[in-house]
């Protein structure tokens, strides 16, 4: 698996094989071996009301439960979003990505943000053929609130050539913003729950 250099990325973008759009400032966003991703303007924030717990083994009920405990919000460009210490929110990349079937991606944080305590993603792998905005799990591990704005370059996408073509068959199809977790759809998750014991 070879990492694509900036030059390869540009060529693939020009051929239409790889799509990362909108690239508002390609000259600065496409680095030597990665593409900087900007923060989108849609977030899923957590509410802590009357949901006692999230039990993924509850399968079908889980989605409704999660949607009760998470709330989707949109903010305008140039509007601030404050991430408080230890707060966890789902954001998404501003860019919509379509990977070729022989290229996989890794989303990684930028160290400049990491040094402020902002962690960008925990699930970093993007499968070949994936289409959509990439959901980013944002956590402020610092001691003071961090203000972010949509459009900030907050993460990097590293692209790697796969050894063969793969068609994406995942559960997140063409998302245009952050997605709620669908872990309850895992094939065997119910078998391991307390009710199946």
């Amino acid at each position, binding site marked *: 698996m070879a990492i694509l250099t900036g030059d390869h990325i540009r060529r693939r973008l020009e051929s239409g094989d790889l799509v990362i759009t909108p690239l*508002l400032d390609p*000259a600065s*966003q496409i680095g030597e071996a990665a593409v900087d991703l900007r923060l989108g303007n849609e977030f899923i924030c957590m509410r802590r009301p009357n949901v006692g717990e999230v039990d993924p083994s509850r399968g079908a009920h889980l989605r409704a439960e999660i949607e009760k405990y998470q709330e989707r919000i949109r903010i*305008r460009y140039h509007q601030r979003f404050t991430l408080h210490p230890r707060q966890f929110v789902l954001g998404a990349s*501003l860019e919509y990505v379509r990977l070729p079937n022989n290229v996989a991606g890794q989303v990684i944080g930028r160290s400049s943000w990491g040094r402020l305590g902002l962690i960008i993603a925990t699930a970093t792998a993007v499968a070949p053929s994936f289409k959509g905005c990439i959901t980013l799990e944002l956590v402020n591990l610092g001691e003071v609130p961090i203000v972010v704005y949509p459009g900030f370059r907050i993460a*990097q996408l590293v692209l790697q050539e796969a050894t063969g073509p793969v068609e994406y068959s995942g559960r997140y199809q063409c998302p245009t913003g952050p997605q709620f977790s669908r872990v309850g759809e895992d094939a065997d998750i119910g078998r391991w729950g307390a009710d199946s014991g």
Partner: protein
Amino acid sequence: MSATELDLLVSGALRIARVIQKRTSVLHHGDYASDTPDFLAQLIERAASHAERRLMALRTSGYDPAASCDTARVWFAYLRDMYRHLRFVERATVRRTPWSLVKPFEELAERLHAGARFLIRPQWGYNYGIVELVHHYRRVLSASGTKEDLGRIFRGIPKRLYVTSFAGVERLNAPLHVVLGHEVAHPIENQYFSRVRRTEGAVLARALERLLDREPDCLDKEKLPKTSRTIKTIAELRKNALRELMCDHACVVLFGPAALFAFEELGRLLGFDTFTRDDHHPPWRYRLRHALELLPKPRVDSYLRRCGLPRDVRASVLNRCQRIQDLTDDDTDLQALREHVDTDIAYELVRESLPKVRRCITGRLANSHLTLSNLPTTGVRELVERLEGGILPNEYWVAVSPDEVPTTSWRERKPIPADLRAILISAAIDRTHRLPSAFISGTTQEAVDDYHDKCHCADRLVLRAIECSHLQLHYPGGDSGHGDTDG
């Protein structure tokens, strides 16, 4: 009315004025896609504050119940309206609107009406509509305010502010929202009918002439009241039909085949032959017939060819045009209109006036460089392909010309942000191309569900694409700087 009753009335009105001001202070912090809702909130707040001052003055000046009663009642009615108008602002938040469409649509509308602003908000009713409020408030307040008062109330407020409504249930249905192109043409037809007000007498005379042909005794003394009512109805029917047809015309010029398909969708849902005598709107079959006259199948074909669309896509679109043609070949709407003397005469007069009103709307749109012959074609093919492939249709790629200043990013091809019209036309073409396979006779519910899922996905992509292309067009940075490899 006793002094106590009057005092209660004034107190009630004052309470509403204060509630409005309190509510607007909250609405100022709402999350809107543009600053237009904030302008309306400001206007309502200032109008309510002016009303409060007037009511306080009324209270402190010592009541003369007879003189003050009417004033208090009028203010109470105005304040009730102001409170109702707050819902326009409240519903214009990003959660309730196809918010990414709002700013680009406002910009398109402002090309037609310089200095005017457009607020887009959902409504519970299944319809689209438009109403102007700045002029309305100016009219209402000019009777009670000094020049200084009015200057204070309208300072910084746009010359005209139109509230355009869409069917809330269709919030994400991007291709249907091309109907907003119809709504933004209403101010044009309004100006036209204000200009030709002097000729209304001639219209009434023509209506009477036709009525005399059908009912020679209509001028008999005992029939005069009925005849007068009929003539009035005919004039209203004619005017309202022409208003709608003018705006349909504008919508077709703005969005080409996408407008035809949106009209068809509305007609299918609301009834092709439904004719309500309350609003005097022509039946959808009638409107579709006129829209098709502007954009007949061969003209659509020529447009699709200029876009470079592949044969199968062209075939789907032309099939849909043919279905619309078949719908309009059926003349059940015309038969229904002929059943009543008033509608029959009114629509005869509509046919006579149509060429003139069409010239007016064509000329007005052409002043803003909006014509049927310059419907966007560049990039439409790629936008449709992108949508079909599940990619945002926000841009298309063109070859970098050899004499262009080289950029560090693109060597052979570069992306160009698509405009709103191109994106919405592509969305309508893409949806039409998907349509036949899902609805061929004997299709399964599963196939229909799949079609709706795909449409929903495409709608999301289209709305996001509109947002992204707008961002690309207005992004202040550029092709400069160096990559940050520090990580």
